């Protein structure tokens, strides 16, 4: 009896296993045959593409959309639009946030399991796909099918936008354009501290240094303790403090043109002065002593707690700055035009901002459909009659615009919104605002501090962008993929740079000789070779 019972148990378990496996096998097979069928049979228009998108289905706004309207990522206003107007159905095969998306994409590349149309986030992956001939050429299709509107949006910043996806003179990817103004580094200052200590807004980097000193020495928070810091710094200062380096025409993250050659900004002698300044500030206690072990989030704690009066960062740091208000009621933040060594306007180096590229797997039928989808997409948001309240932000859900299988923004969207709001407020024509300007203005009216801080009139990041774009902007001299040597040795070369620069700021290495040693070592590690390779890869005009 007992034996029979055990056998029955075991048998049922085996059944579960077998059924589980086989039903899944079956599922997989029917899926793929269905795809093939729809490619050939039926009307020639109806077609299903498998898609890969760097988009997090667990995002708060995705759940909100589902709750409010019943729409999901795989079946929402965007996918329905593409199906109705173009007969294109979307089947997501890879879908996750960027960290795991890049991983999944690499695995898919290695195992030959790519979706029909997918997003590529990293230039090195793009390079591999192009070299392997795994993706369709798209440049001629773009020329043929893209609407004037689409072309004007994609190329509005610079024609060089296709550089990273060009291989052997042909274009293989479609840029997912974002506002390059995202690359600005702004100087944020506690204006209430300035007022309290009777200080002027900074024009030169010398002023910044003096303000930082006053913020530390003169007890700006008025608690009688010497517990404040002058300027926020963290272990990723190369990125997070770019604005300070720019003051000296030093560009730590960019390729710049110098002596007729493209060169790495971080190994240029212009870096020495800002490093010496940071070293001095560190020595005098104006900076966090422990910055070497703090990431941006950790280092910003002191700012949010109302203990640090200045920081460099992109415009969306407003969301972090806003939290200061809960800890210090008097806090008032401003951003100022970037102070420089001479007081002249700063040069602002920008990379062309894109959320990667959309590509079409080699052999996919009708690759031009990607361009057609893009035409339709931009028509809804930036066409003659854009409906922002349906396609951009709607039903209390932020970011409907990125919940589409393909997407792209007008690079001028943020700046235009700021300009429109500024003009409308000045002329008293707020009610006639449209598009993103209206969206932002409504948010400001509803008391959204961060939106007001970023895009409103006054001393805001976009006020500075308005004054400096595109006059002071300098596009990166090289926009393509990392060179082979960089791929192979980049991480150890980077390690050398980060550790040496950190140690210079901490005063353990001399700014002058230590920097020269680092450059020499970097060159012998492969820096020289990388520079040569990159110069060979730079498109000659």
């Amino acid at each position: 009896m007992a034996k029979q019972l055990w056998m029955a148990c075991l048998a049922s378990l085996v059944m579960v296993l077998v059924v589980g496996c086989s039903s899944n096998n079956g599922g997989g097979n029917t899926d793929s045959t269905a795809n093939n069928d729809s490619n050939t049979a039926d009307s020639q228009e109806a077609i299903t593409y498998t898609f890969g998108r760097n988009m997090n289905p667990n995002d708060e706004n995705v759940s909100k959309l589902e709750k409010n309207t019943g729409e999901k990522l795989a079946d929402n206003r965007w996918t329905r639009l593409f199906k109705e107007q173009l007969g294109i159905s979307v089947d997501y095969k890879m879908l996750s946030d960027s960290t795991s998306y890049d991983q999944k994409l690499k695995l898919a590349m290695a195992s030959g399991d790519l979706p029909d149309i997918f997003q590529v986030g990293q230039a090195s992956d793009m390079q591999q796909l192009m070299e392997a001939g795994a993706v369709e050429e798209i440049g001629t299709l773009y020329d043929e099918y893209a609407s004037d509107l689409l072309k004007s949006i994609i190329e509005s910043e610079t024609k060089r936008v296709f550089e990273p996806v060009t291989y052997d003179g042909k274009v293989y990817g479609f840029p997912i354009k974002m506002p390059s103004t995202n690359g600005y580094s702004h100087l944020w200052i506690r204006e209430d501290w300035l007022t309290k200590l009777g200080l002027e807004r900074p024009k030169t980097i010398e002023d910044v240094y003096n303000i930082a000193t006053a913020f530390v020495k003169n007890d700006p928070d008025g608690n009688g303790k010497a517990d404040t810091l002058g300027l926020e710094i963290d272990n990723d200062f190369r990125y997070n403090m770019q604005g300070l380096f720019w003051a000296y025409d030093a560009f730590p993250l960019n390729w710049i043109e110098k002596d007729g050659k493209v060169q790495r900004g971080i190994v240029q002698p212009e870096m020495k002065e800002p490093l010496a300044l940071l070293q001095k500030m560190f020595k005098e206690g104006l900076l966090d002593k422990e910055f070497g072990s703090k990431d941006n989030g950790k280092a910003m704690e002191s700012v949010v707690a109302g203990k640090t009066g200045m920081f460099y960062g992109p415009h969306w740091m407003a969301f972090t700055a806003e939290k200061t208000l809960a800890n210090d009621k008097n806090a008032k933040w401003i951003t100022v035009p970037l102070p420089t060594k001479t007081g002249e306007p700063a040069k602002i180096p920008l990379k062309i901002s894109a959320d990667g590229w959309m590509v079409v797997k080699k052999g996919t039928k009708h690759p031009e459909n990607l361009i057609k989808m893009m035409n339709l997409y931009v028509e809804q948001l930036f066409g003659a009659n854009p409906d922002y309240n349906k396609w951009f932000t709607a039903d209390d859900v932020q970011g409907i615009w990125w919940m589409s299988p393909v997407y792209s923004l007008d690079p001028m969207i943020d700046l235009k919104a700021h300009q429109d709001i500024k003009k409308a407020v000045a002329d008293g024509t707020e009610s006639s605002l449209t598009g993103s300007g209206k969206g932002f203005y409504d948010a400001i009216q509803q008391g959204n501090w961060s939106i007001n801080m970023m895009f409103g009139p006054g001393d805001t990041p976009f006020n500075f962008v308005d004054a400096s774009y595109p006059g002071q902007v300098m596009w990166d001299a090289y926009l393509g993929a990392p060179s082979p040597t960089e791929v192979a040795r980049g991480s150890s070369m980077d390690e050398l740079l980060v550790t040496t620069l950190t140690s210079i700021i901490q005063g353990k290495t001399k700014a002058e000789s230590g920097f020269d040693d680092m450059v020499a070592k970097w060159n012998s590690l492969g820096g020289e070779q990388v520079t040569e390779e990159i110069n060979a890869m730079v498109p000659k005009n």
Partner: protein
Amino acid sequence: MPTRQTRGQKLFGVFNYAFLGLVAIICIIPFVHIIALSLSDNSAVAGGLVHLWPVRFTLEPYNYVLERQAFWRAFGITIQRATIGTLINVLLVILIAFPLSKKVESFKMRSVYVWIFFFTMLFNGGLIPNYILIKELGLMDTIWALVLPGAVTVFNIILMLNFFREVPEELDDAANIDGATHWRTLWQIYVPVSMPAIATITLFCLVGHWNSWFDGLIYMRSAENYPLQSYLQTIVVEFNFQTMTATEAERLAKLNDRSVKGAQMIVAAIPILLVYPFLQKYFVSGIRLGSVKG
């Protein structure tokens, strides 16, 4: 047998308690910290003002988590995975360990099989071959991709095998004489006697399934199918603004809410913490059993 302790013994006791107490505190403090974070106002958390006690107490993060569909979906997948996976693991451990615990006289190929199993502990195919295998088997995006690749837990088999060997041979002989088959001997003699070991292994497997995140990350094509820890990994991982897309950086800056993350971690840890007390008694009896026999 009450004896007076010598001074040395007393000293040792004091030192022992102090040391173990310290270790316990070190283990507990991170938990307390996360609990404090999860009960604090987000602006206080972002300002680094919260240490071991909530600042500006609020239950808002928990409300938020309770309403979060993505979290509960991931939670459900993990429960499913832990149940199915642990059942398969324990069953296979018992079925494999039993024959391998026999002497070479009664099972000639025994050491060959042991070596085959042992070999897989030292070498494996690597990530990409595994990925291709799972893909070709059609397991992608299914619960089986999470439970089948790790179905045979060799480490646990070795534990179990050694435990079975400890079982007195006389029991086996007696069962044999009474006409029991191998099946019956296994399920009616060996398994009941080995409950402490089975409980331990169950716990190992359960915790393993509960905590693993990497397989979910790569075998699930859509993040909608992530088990809980993969889901948590994507929200708590330190992000690098330089490599992520501008859209995402902006969104994360907006949503980076450590009190909510803390609340999700706590809610995710509770079920597995609740399992321990139930299996505790087996651990104790397991230890005692061993000492009596020894």
